């Protein structure tokens, strides 16, 4: 008697299909950001003075605060998955709620950062805008879009967890967790590259 083919996971490695697909997606995302980092480093090397001057308008303490917020939200995401796998719905809701709150806090800090840049005329199309700020807005902007994209399914899962059966798909939350940790990883590189690379 042959075992039925299980389409929920890859047959040899037993890795869930969604998880494998997410890793493949994250690999492509890493290459996407690698393009930004590579171009940024090359252009910084050939326009050092302009990049050096422009970088001093950035607020590294605000970026440091955002780093701690994202690290904290990575922890709460991991704890949310841990609790859902143990069918502890209340703790799952608490930790997922904290993760969403962290994401929201990150965006609020980013709003204040962007607001200060707008006031200083450093936005694209403004008088003080430079090549450095093109990279700043593209890299942090795409990163912020990733944060927003992560928040949407998180809110959906949280709302669904308040129904009678709770949220019934731990693997989906684990897959979303991979994405969320990747968002944290990218910030770990963006933070020193943009805010700290010039002494």
């Amino acid at each position, binding site marked *: 008697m042959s075992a039925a083919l299980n389409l929920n996971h890859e047959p040899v*490695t037993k890795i869930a299909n969604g998880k494998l697909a997410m890793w493949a997606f994250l690999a492509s995302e890493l290459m996407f950001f690698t393009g930004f980092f590579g171009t940024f480093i090359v252009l910084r090397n050939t326009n050092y003075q302009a990049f050096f001057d422009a970088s001093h308008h950035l607020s590294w303490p605000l970026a440091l605060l955002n780093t701690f917020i994202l690290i904290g939200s990575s922890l709460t995401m991991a704890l949310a*998955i841990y609790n859902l796998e143990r069918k502890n719905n209340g703790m799952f809701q608490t930790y997922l709620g904290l993760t969403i709150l962290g994401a929201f806090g990150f965006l609020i800090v980013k709003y204040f950062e962007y607001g200060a840049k707008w006031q200083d005329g450093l936005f694209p199309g403004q008088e003080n805008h430079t090549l450095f700020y093109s990279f700043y807005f593209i890299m942090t902007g795409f990163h912020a879009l990733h944060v927003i994209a992560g928040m949407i399914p998180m809110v959906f899962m949280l709302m669904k967890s308040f129904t009678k059966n709770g949220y019934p798909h731990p693997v989906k939350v684990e897959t979303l*967790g991979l994405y969320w940790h990747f968002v944290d990883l990218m910030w770990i590189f963006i933070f020193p590259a943009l805010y700290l690379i010039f002494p």
Partner: protein
Amino acid sequence: MGHDHGNVIPAYMKVFFTLCAMTLLTVAAAKLVHFPDVGFIHGYVLNITVGLAIAVFKVICVMYIFMHLKFDNPYLRFFVYVPVFLFFVLTFGLNLEFGAAPSNDHVTRTVHQQLYPGDHKAGH
């Protein structure tokens, strides 16, 4: 199909506090420490390299513990190692090239003079 990895909370907490400490170390390495020149590599290139090395350590912590790479099927690591390796090669390679290659000597001289105005060593 969730995997039970046992009680991983102590490991999560260790990673969380390590990440916080490493973040502060990154800021200190960038803002407080000025490395001396080592051979043909300028000190500020070492500052950048140390910052990136700390970031690499943080990335490994997150991938292995938070993203469960340590606990999942080892085949999965092939998916991860190749793009991560390419990313590191590019960022480290470009940064070291900046400080070490003779073709960039005029750039490194200018940078050195901006960082250390009183030191004329790099200008010769």
